[in-house]
């Protein structure tokens, strides 16, 4: 638990609604879920952008690049000479999406 200052007028209004502490908890949970949804939607949009460029999911893309068969790598390098920049950004949004998905899930279940 941490202590946070809340403006007196907010405390007065919250007390009208019920127990101040549980009202604050509920409000914060809703706020965090809203912010998580925003970030999830942002990540989803960015991920979709790269999936359309490379016609596959990030995991499939990374696996194909790591394959012993260099045909896919040759093809990607022929069509996208700076694919590594896309890889880095794409991976970062996939990882962020997974983090926010877990956070949102935790907020809903804890």
């Amino acid at each position, binding site marked *: 638990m941490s202590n946070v200052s809340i403006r007196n007028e907010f405390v007065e209004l919250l007390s009208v609604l019920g127990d101040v502490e549980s009202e604050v908890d509920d409000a914060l949970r809703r706020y965090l879920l809203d912010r998580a949804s925003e970030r999830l939607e*942002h990540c989803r949009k960015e991920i979709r952008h790269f999936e359309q460029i490379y016609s596959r999911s990030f995991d499939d893309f990374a696996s194909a690049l790591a394959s012993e068969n260099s045909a896919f790598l040759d093809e990607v390098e022929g069509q996208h*000479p700076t694919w590594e920049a896309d890889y*880095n*950004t794409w991976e970062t949004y996939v*990882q962020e999406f997974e983090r926010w998905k877990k956070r949102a899930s935790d907020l809903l279940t804890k």
Partner: protein
Amino acid sequence: MEEARLRPFDEIVALLLRTFSRVVIRRRDESAEVSVLEAECAYGDYRVVVSEVLAPDGRKYTYYVLDGQNALVAGFDNSPDRRAAQLRYGPTYREHIRERIPHRHDLSRQAISLTEEMTLPDWIAWLRQHIPAS
């Protein structure tokens, strides 16, 4: 303070603007947890593509120079690369296939070599020394 913390790429963008012409910021997404910057610029007749990512799993970068035919003249990055893993680890490279290994591509990607971790100021110094703006 909050404002400064959330804009980690101000110095990088300022350096790009001082160094290159026709600087276009393709993507700039900065949050407390993840920051992504992608930019394209002109360096003489060359096209320069720069990306920087700051994420919980570390810093990711690409610094590329391309010619008029869109062929890679030289490129530094630390993205996972099977060939870089083979160079560093030899026969056991598959155990390190997703590892970020700083490396450099040359000659339209016909050559690859391992490097030290690169930063934008270091790369610009390298660029000026090895590839004069045509």
